[in-house]
């Protein structure tokens, strides 16, 4: 276990070094973010003074060092455009993305598992194939397209859901504790807000859940078709284990490890996919903010937040690795039995 942790730590350093180097180099190629922050009346003296204040007039290597020092000591520069601190921005936008991503993962894994189990039991039949073809379609369908269709259908025609946004602008949101509206409204005991937040979350979460659902069902289905598991199924059925118990006790247990791996890696893909979802659903999340900051030459915000996103994806993958390791140990003992 110690060795494992050491290897992972080494990998983390490697990821940090590579990612920060690439991001820094890419940002160097963005021409003159300071004078470009003025779309109309740049003032030469002011531009020079501001570059100096931000250390942007120093040699490149020194700037790279400064970038690390500021990043690691959390002394992050403010946004060039809004004047808000980059860390403050992260705390502002991340909860919205996290809330959406977690809900999408939850919906995705439940729906994906259900599809796989269903397809397994109906395998060979038409309906089973239909269920699995959903998985293939889900992997390739463009998320923004699903988003627009669900808006037209769910909001415009049925009128069940609001057309994007995070919370009713005519209502007062619950006091902020975690930044996750669902959690905050429960903490405040405000069920009405909880309901409202859920209505806003529903469509984007469904839309974002398509990809993980497809992924989970494909992986789980593959696992259930492995010869060992097929044999296990026959043995268990012969022993008189009912189908419900077969689903929830045994299948999920043997399937958990690959599913967790998939979820861990999908998380990163979701943060990327969330950019489109966040645009279509006017969701005030981190993905949209980071993309805008790059387009608008908001140097520091783009640098820090991209790096944080990459590190976060790595850490989540790492945690899912740990969970899988733990599950493997348990599963081996189950299969031995």
């Amino acid at each position, binding site marked *: 276990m110690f060795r494992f942790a050491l290897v992972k730590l080494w990998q983390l350093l490697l990821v940090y070094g590579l990612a920060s180097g690439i991001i820094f180099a890419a940002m160097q190629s963005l*021409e*003159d973010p300071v*004078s*470009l922050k*003025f*779309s*109309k*009346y*740049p*003032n*030469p003296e*002011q*531009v020079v003074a*501001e570059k100096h204040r931000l250390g942007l007039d120093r040699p490149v290597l020194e700037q790279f060092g400064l970038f690390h020092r500021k990043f690691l000591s959390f002394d992050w520069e*403010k946004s060039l*455009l*809004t*004047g*808000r601190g980059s860390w403050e*921005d992260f705390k*502002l*936008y991340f909860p919205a993305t996290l809330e959406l991503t977690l809900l999408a993962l939850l919906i995705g894994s439940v729906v994906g598992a259900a599809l796989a189990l269903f397809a397994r039991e109906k395998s060979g039949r038409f309906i089973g194939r239909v269920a699995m073809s959903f998985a293939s379609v889900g992997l390739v369908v463009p998320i923004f397209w699903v988003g*627009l269709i669900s*808006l*037209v259908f769910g*909001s*415009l025609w049925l*009128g*069940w*859901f*609001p*057309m*994007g*946004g*995070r919370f009713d*602008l*005519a209502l007062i949101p619950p006091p902020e504790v975690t930044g996750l509206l669902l959690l905050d409204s429960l903490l405040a005991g405000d069920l*009405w807000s909880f309901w409202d937040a859920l*209505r806003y979350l*529903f469509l984007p979460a469904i839309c974002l859940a398509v990809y993980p659902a497809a992924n989970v069902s494909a992986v789980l289905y593959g696992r259930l078709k492995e010869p060992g598991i097929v044999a296990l199924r026959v043995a268990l059925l012969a022993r008189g284990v009912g189908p419900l118990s077969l689903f929830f006790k045994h299948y999920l247990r043997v399937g958990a490890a690959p599913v967790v791996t998939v979820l861990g890696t999908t998380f990163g893909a979701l943060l990327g996919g969330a950019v489109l979802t966040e*645009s*279509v*659903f*006017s969701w*005030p999340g981190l993905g*949209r*903010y980071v993309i*805008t900051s790059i*387009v*608008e*030459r908001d140097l520091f915000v783009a640098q820090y937040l991209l790096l944080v996103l990459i590190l976060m994806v790595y850490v989540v993958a790492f945690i899912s690795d740990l969970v899988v390791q733990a599950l493997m140990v348990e599963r081996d003992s189950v299969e031995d039995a």
Partner: protein
Amino acid sequence: MLSSCGRPSGDSSKRSETFVFARGSDAQKLDPADVDDGESVNTLAQICEGLVRFRSGTLEIEPCLAESYEISEDGLRYRFRLRNGVSFHDGTALTAEAAVYSFQRQMDPKHPAHLEEASFSYWNYLYQDVLEVRVIGPMELEFVLSQPNASLLYSLAVFPAFLVSPNALAVHGDQFQRHPVGTGPYEFVEWRPNEAIVMKRNEAYWGDPAGFERLVMSVVPDNTVRLLKLKAGEVQGMDGLQPSELDGLEGDDSLVIHREAGLNVGYLAFNLENERLKHREVREAIALAIDRESLASVALSGAGRVAHYPIPKGFLGYPETEERIPFDILKARGIVEANKSLFVEPFEIRVMNAPRQYFPDPVSVATFIKGQLENAGIPVNVVASDFKSHLNTLRNGEFEMGLIGWVGDNGDSDNFLGMFFGSWAAEKGMASNYSFYRNEQMDELLLSARREGDLLNRADLYQDVLDLWRRDLPLLPLVHGDNIAVIDARYEGFELQKIGDLRLGSVRLRGASTEQP
């Protein structure tokens, strides 16, 4: 189960008390002295006001926070008498002392509210001739100029001259931009970044009270979704409509489309430092080869008008009888034939890939021009890049021809012509004279027009400027893009403003009474 009909009673009345305006992106900063994006300006225009303002829908100045003003004979002193009984949203009374604060903080680098991170970039341009702003009585203040500047009164109606509460600046310091305090019809409540800015009615407003308890500027990045939201009644007004979507809205009685020519010009800049474009006949051939009438109708889906001059129609100096640059492909071909060696290599046209007010679809404008020029035997390559890169390329003069434009600030000719043709605006890296046109005679004309107090004389001077422009042709004006906003038909009182800022203070539910305070 998921229907929206289970809302608590009273909620629907609350809804009719809220007006939501949707736009594509969020404001950057809410300090009128330190912004240059339209979204920030459009938000601030509900919260703050200036000494004077443009009469709604026109370019005429009318009193606002000043009830009267007086300009000295020599044009060097502007005296304003403030309206009595006005207070800022935080209760601070509007006095001459409070009013000068908003200007002194921009002028004086040692002023406590001259915030380190704020740039005050407009001050050096629109108000450069202001020497001093001083209190001359409890309710009277005076601007002293270093030289007469006829556009100052107009500039004082623009957002950098909005008055803000000195107390709020003292309380919030560099956080003021997130807690703006002015005197306007709506009062700032809350800013949820990238989501919405919430305001409430200023109950103590000196003019007609605002129409709604709450006003929300919400961010809806996707163009299609923004329009869907308006149609579904989730928002009551929006801007940023694409011209191609206009056709689909004709005949929709539930929406009112407001559109008129904006104070802008989209043009083709010729880099005069380029070996080939420094020849006047090359520029002339290019100008003659482009059918600008078709350009406006085809490439802009009709959401713009042809620009015959570098200033919009109605501006000081705009000739009564237009002398239009003709579309004459034969003549263009003749010039190309006569100067063959100059037209062998393809010319490069640089263009931005995202819409601007003057070019709703810039790449299609570039493609159209390419087709036209190649028709006349002038080979062309189009290079598109994102707006900020494009701006950087142009400001540094690293291009041959560039499609770019200007959105006016104060409705004055100097704000266009000075930025395009003054040699002072041709500094590499910071240029707005993207042609890098330097002509002493032009500088002279521009400066004397700026100093001239007499309107007729000023108009004459600007006509001379335009003659000189036509002679040297450093740029080719193409179009004036339209200002477009769409408002739910159940609301009234909305009017587009010439300088493009939004005024929502006068909007109310159709049929709602306007009680006087």
